[in-house]
């Protein structure tokens, strides 16, 4: 009989081994992704015309001095040597120093990373807080007014550029009504002055969360509608289960997987995509550090930022994978 104890425990242990193997494989992929991403950006930035040494030297410097400084900075070594040496040091936690300011790259990034991360996380939480109820309501009242309202709003949400939304927020909340400050968040310590921090953070968080909220709502809605039209829902209804129960337990489950995917992708890309929002609100975050470094050809800083962005990417995907399994153990490990 299939249900004998030995068979079950064998199946369990096989599953366990598969799981572990899968996870390990994913973890092994982490350095691979980091290497590929950082390598491509490294090549790109080295192909970019413009010499980082210009940021240090006076413009009267002779070619001789330029040569000396390039040598000091290690910029005259062959590209693969430069890259590998960077990679080696990076894996030991040494990301080098900014060419321009001589500040350690790690310090520069860690000064600015938390702010970006906090804002992105707040935006994500906000989006979930809005999209889950909105998606459920929209699916529940499909075809009626609430559904149309939600669909209309989300349509606007995916059709509006982020900076456009930011500008509208600024126009209304900051300029007309004078309710919120626009920039200066860098000087506020969130833990010591949470209320003040919140005032500075509201507009950037709303802006960052806009597209995500709209996307999530639509996704939730369509997944739940899919589920609601399945056979087993009709069976559940026929059995007399309450609508609320049906909605949240059965239909919503169907949407969890895509939802996790969307959130993970958002995190993965978010660290790199906050550049525009940071530029509008004057937020000294990772995005603005990166773009300034690109402008100044500050290679160590660019590499360092890319390194962190890649790490975020893989960690976000890994967490998503773990959550997938947790949500739906039927998933096979491929």
């Amino acid at each position, binding site marked *: 009989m299939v249900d004998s104890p030995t068979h*079950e*425990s064998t*199946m*369990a242990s096989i*599953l*366990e081994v598969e*799981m572990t193997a899968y*996870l390990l494989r994913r*973890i092994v992929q982490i350095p691979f992704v980091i290497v590929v991403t950082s390598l491509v950006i490294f090549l790109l930035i080295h192909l*970019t*015309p*413009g*010499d*980082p040494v*210009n*940021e*240090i*030297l*006076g*413009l*009267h*410097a*002779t070619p001789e*001095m330029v040569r000396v400084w390039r040598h000091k900075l290690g910029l005259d070594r062959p590209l693969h040597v430069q890259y590998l040496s960077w990679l080696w040091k990076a894996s030991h*936690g*040494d990301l080098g*120093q900014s060419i*321009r*300011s*001589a*500040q*350690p790259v*790690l*310090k*520069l990034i*860690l*000064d*600015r990373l938390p702010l970006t991360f906090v804002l992105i996380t707040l935006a994500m939480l906000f989006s979930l807080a809005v999209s889950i109820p909105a998606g459920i309501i929209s699916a529940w009242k499909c075809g009626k007014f609430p559904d149309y309202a939600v669909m209309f709003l989300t349509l606007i949400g995916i059709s509006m550029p982020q900076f456009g939304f930011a500008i509208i927020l600024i126009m209304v909340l*900051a300029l007309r009504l004078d309710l919120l*400050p*626009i*920039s*200066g968040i*860098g*000087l506020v310590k969130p833990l010591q002055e949470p209320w003040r921090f919140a005032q500075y953070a509201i507009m950037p968080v709303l802006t960052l969360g806009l597209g995500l909220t709209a996307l999530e709502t639509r996704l939730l809605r369509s997944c739940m509608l899919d589920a609601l039209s399945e056979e087993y829902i009709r069976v559940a209804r026929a059995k007399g289960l309450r609508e609320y129960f049906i909605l949240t337990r059965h239909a919503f489950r169907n949407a969890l997987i895509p939802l996790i995917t969307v959130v993970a992708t958002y995190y993965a890309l978010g660290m790199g995509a906050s550049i525009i929002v940071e*530029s*509008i609100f*004057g937020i*000294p975050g990772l995005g*603005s*550090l990166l773009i*300034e470094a*690109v*402008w*100044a*050809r500050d290679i160590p800083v660019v590499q360092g930022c890319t390194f962190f962005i890649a790490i975020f990417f893989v*960690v976000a995907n890994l967490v998503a994978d773990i959550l997938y*399994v*947790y949500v739906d*153990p039927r998933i096979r490990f491929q």
Partner: protein
Amino acid sequence: MEKKKVTRRKFLKVAGTVGLWLGAAASSLLEACAPKPTPAPAPPEAPTPAPVPPEAPTPTPVPPTAAPTVVPSVRKDLVVGLHADVPSFGAFTKLGETGPKVNESIIRRLARVSHETFQPEPELAVEWAMEDPTTWVIKLREGVQWHKGWGEVTAEDVEYTINYIVENQAYKYGTGILNVDYVKARSKYVVEVKLTQPFLAFPQVTMDHGGDICCKKAHLEMGEEEYKINPIGCGPFQFEEWVSGSHVIIKKFPDYWNPDQPKVEEVVFPIIPDASVRLAALEKGEIDWMDRINGKDIPRVRELEGFTFENVPGWNWDCLAFGFAPYIDAKYVTEDFPTQIKEVRQAISYAISRQDIIDAVYYGEGQPSDSPIPEGFPGYRPWPLKYPPEGDLETAKSLMAQAGVDGFDAEVIGLATMPWHVQELEVIAEQVKPLGINLSITAVEEGMWHERWYEHNFTMGMREISMVSADTDSCLYWFHRSGAKHWQGWPNAPDEWLDGARAETDPEKQKELYIKITDRVIDECPYIFTGHVNVIRLYDERLTGFRPWRVYFIMTLDDVGWTA
């Protein structure tokens, strides 16, 4: 189901172990960081100076500085809004425009030229004299201390600084430190500087612009890299903290030689790149001082209640530069390109309306000018020297006809971080259209700017030039002499006159030379100067003690205090 439960529990165990592993890896990575700003290194022991018999130099009469009325400040804090991050600190690197705003309070110069009297005032140096045409002797102030316990300022520091710049061709080489043969400390407080040629403007150029001295001991012990993020000066404020992209903080130096300075105890410099946001912060009281105001806000803030609107004629100008073949890469300019013809350049200079530019881009805060020398300097003559401020399209057209050029297309580059230049280029492009000239504008960012401007890769470009030294030489030499820093290949450069003027010891003869040089520049138009832009600052009206520097990159806070 049984199977599910086992799976899940076991799975969580695995996931938990993995999580711990990741967490350990992450925390070891984090350990390698220092999230707090770099702390100052521990000061070494005070050095014992070697006794050297002092030599008294021949004293030169130095105009005395008026002692400021000593009124203590009501408040001890000050918030100054910066428009861009400081690229770095340090005595030997480029500080950009915002770096010096902070740095001037940390370091001291040998002498400082007043932008009101045009005369150099003693700062680190109390006396200086020209012993013979190529030798200058400087006597330092005694008892000036370096920050954070690094000892006393001596002639050795001056010797070290200038020699370092010369040997390493570091940042101020060629602009502040010119024609130096050697530097020698004659005694503890007396320095001798030997030049390779006479240089009348030595106090203005080398002692002021090139005169920020770094601490030899600190620089040697800390190393250049550490020094750049932990500058040691001898000024009224000492460096406290710098969070890149966010702010800089400096605090009062308790052992400053002048007990009445500074008046405030802490200055915070938040970095707010957006000008409208900065203005809003000023109006709300979040910051107390700002500059680099958007042109369009100027009409409104001129009369703003509660604020002082300071506008001074600037020692700067905007200019349109031409690249010349064969110095410029052939991809951008060849010898038969229309901009190589003098009449074409003159035509452009006639076609543009400088008044319109000042009005449109700067809302009237500036002076249209076709001359490179601002008012107050030897060789200055009132503008316009040749080209009328409203422009003269007829003459322009006839010049084009004379040159036999119907029109042409050209690319102009401008710095993207100076959007007012891009606006100016848009206006100019429109103004030269009647001549058949089509200008396409490329706004390049910093890194690209270096690549294009300094590597000779452009046809035309717009730039803003500020005089770094209060001397006519600094507004002519580097742009108009072959081989000099900003020379872009102008074949007819008046090298002899420029060299002669620099080494000239008779002020009258010098002025003549400058006039000759200017005339040639106006005639041949290697640069088309559009105007001097006013330097505008806005600050809380309860503040006093700001000195009206004529350039954006100087700011001194020695006597700044609150009256209420």
